């Protein structure tokens, strides 16, 4: 820069508009990069291209109908989103969930965490430039788990299976064997991705030190989930405020130490292993039969007036449902605190100063789901 100025040459910063139609923006995210050569000097994120007004729509739907909207908000980890939502309704309506339903819910939610992280592995590696290999690895394994979801809930992505008070119907008879098989398969898939990426020098060179954020700043920005744990904070809502039956399982909380893209990747990879552990324990403990819905469940669920902020640890971070009821069978106000929306706020902080190519890596490492960012 200084050399050119001494010689009287002008340099020009150009604006590069990435998205809403760009292979690396994971949907319809748009960021305007101001670049000086290859270096990013400013970044303005634009969101809202996928805003469907799920919060407003939920105000007009009863508690059961709104479950479908939760699926479509967080479509890569729909079971986790549903779980958070139905727990919020249960807290407000004071419903007790039967044992078997709790286990089914936890197993499915944890498996959904694995599928979501598989999706991250694939998309993140593709952002860095792997020619679809990691992507197909991730998808291959994800398919096995989705097959299981389909056998249980009837759908591969938009399950609408959890209900306030339990689950819609019982799991099939061979559920336990299928889950065990899926767990074995998942370990193979994890080791494939591990071998392809974790020690690969090119991958490490691209992710080490990229998009690092300190733990103080991460808390200040309200980051959560693997992005926060990558900064070295051992924070997991499943441990901090155990919801559902997470206090019965033994699992580790992997943390990074630098808060960079590699640590985020690594934390997610470890988290998948921990999720497999949780699922395996849950299958062992799960009762073979039993009710799946509370006995006294009204046909049309009504909540007493009150409010609750229910939070759950989703693959992307803290998923919060702020539910206000004023009586009746519909929520008065439903606010979704979506983790990637909050994590995306720190994108500028993480990206500025890096190269254009790194902007894509940082965005990928946050692992956003646009359905959840825009809601």
């Amino acid at each position: 820069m200084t050399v050119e100025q001494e010689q009287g040459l002008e340099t020009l910063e150009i604006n590069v508009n990435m998205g809403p139609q760009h292979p690396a923006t994971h949907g319809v995210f748009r960021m305007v990069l101001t670049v000086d050569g290859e270096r990013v000097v400013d970044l303005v994120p634009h969101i809202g291209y996928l805003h469907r007004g799920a919060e407003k729509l939920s105000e007009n739907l009863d508690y059961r109908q709104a479950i479908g909207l939760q699926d479509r908000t967080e479509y890569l980890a729909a079971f986790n989103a549903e779980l958070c939502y139905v727990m919020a309704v249960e807290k407000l309506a004071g419903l007790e969930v039967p044992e078997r339903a709790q286990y089914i819910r936890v197993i499915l939610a944890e498996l959904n965490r694995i599928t979501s992280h598989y999706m991250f592995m694939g998309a993140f590696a593709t952002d860095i430039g792997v020619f679809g290999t990691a992507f197909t690895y991730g998808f291959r394994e994800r398919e096995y788990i989705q097959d299981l979801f389909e056998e249980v809930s009837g759908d591969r992505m938009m399950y609408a299976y959890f209900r306030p008070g339990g689950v819609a119907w019982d799991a099939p008879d061979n559920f336990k064997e299928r889950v065990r098989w899926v767990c074995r398969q998942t370990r193979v898939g994890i080791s494939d991705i591990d071998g392809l990426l974790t020690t690969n020098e090119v991958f490490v060179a691209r992710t080490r030190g990229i998009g690092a954020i300190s733990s103080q700043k991460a808390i200040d920005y309200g980051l959560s989930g693997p992005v926060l744990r990558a900064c070295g904070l051992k924070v997991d809502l499943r441990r901090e405020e155990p919801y559902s039956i997470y206090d019965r399982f033994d699992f580790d909380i992997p943390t990074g130490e630098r808060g960079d893209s590699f640590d985020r990747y690594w934390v997610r990879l470890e988290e998948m292993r921990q999720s497999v552990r949780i699922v395996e324990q849950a299958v062992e403990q799960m009762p073979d039969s039993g009710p799946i819905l509370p006995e006294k469940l009204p046909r049309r669920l009504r909540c007493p007036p009150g409010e609750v902020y229910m939070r759950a640890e989703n693959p992307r971070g803290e998923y919060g449902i702020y539910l206000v009821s004023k009586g009746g069978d519909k929520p008065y106000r439903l606010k979704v605190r979506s983790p990637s929306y909050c994590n995306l706020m720190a994108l500028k902080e993480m990206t500025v100063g890096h190269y254009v190519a790194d902007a894509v890596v940082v965005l990928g490492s946050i692992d956003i789901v646009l359905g959840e960012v825009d809601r």
Partner: protein
Amino acid sequence: MIGGNVWLDAFVRLLAVLGLAILVVLILTYVERKFVGRIQMRLGPMRTGPYGILQSIADTVKLVVKEDLRPASADRWVYELAPIAAFVPAFAVLVALPFTDSWGVRVLNLGLFYVVAVSALSVLGYIMAGWASDNKYALLGAMRSAAQLISYEIPVVLALLALAMVAGSLDLVKIVEAQGRVPFIVWQPLGFFIFLAGMLAETSRRPFDVPSAESEIVGGPWIEYSGIRWSILFAFTEYTTMFGLSVFGALIFLGGWNWPLGLDLGWWWQLLLIFVKATLLIMTTLWMSATFPRLRIDQLMGFCWKILLPMAFLQIFFNGLILVYKWPDWTLLLTSGAALVFTAFLIYDATRVRAPVRAPAGGVTS
């Protein structure tokens, strides 16, 4: 010589090579898709013809029929000529390659020099395309490709120079004959490594596909191109260059048509041998490109200037020492191999993985 006419002879030979290039591109696109498909546990193309063997023909038809778009703000002539400017050097490489001991379009006694010099000219086409497209992504891609292609030319030239010292000639036929017993890959593993990196960079394949960087600058210089122009600029140039450089690499590093069968066999054996070796090289590049992520532009340049270039100089120095003092051949392997191991260490050191340590329990810092 056909009919005693030099021009007619040259024309026929050029046609043969052009036909060969087209054939190779068609086969290569199919092979790449199949091969990468298998790596990803897919089947690859399966619909067009048995096992999808007609896929590349179907693609060609589609690309030719597709509308040839040009942005309204593009610089018309530069934009339209860029594909040609990129393709001609790629094709010109093939002209100087001896496919057997007696057949080539024109076997030059400066063949090595010519191939290296000409193959670098493709960059002109990319810069023209990037500039004329009037697109920021294309411009970024053009600048990247200029930086990358020209930089990688230098260590490759030096590595080949070291090789030419051992062979004692710049004539490709003589280089092949010089590898009578043992191909040069054994004596010059470092040189081969540098050549392979340079070849990946020259053909813009992963991990050096920075100019086209699908997920960052969406195709780089050829972002605005479509139809036949895109296929000339991108597919044709890239695959022709890849084929040309693979044959070149097979000639100078893998013993060409000579090793291990010797010169006495007929030309068809020689042709087969060189194609098998070139295919091996191509497969290796495809394999690598299906495995690796992409390097960043500064890492790419750092790799070239900080690792490959000093190593190439080191190689020349050692070779000179050995040749002047007439040390035995195995010292070539020793020095080059040691340098390769050192290179590997440098790469490892630059990206050293330290497994993230767990924060102490309850180690919450807020």
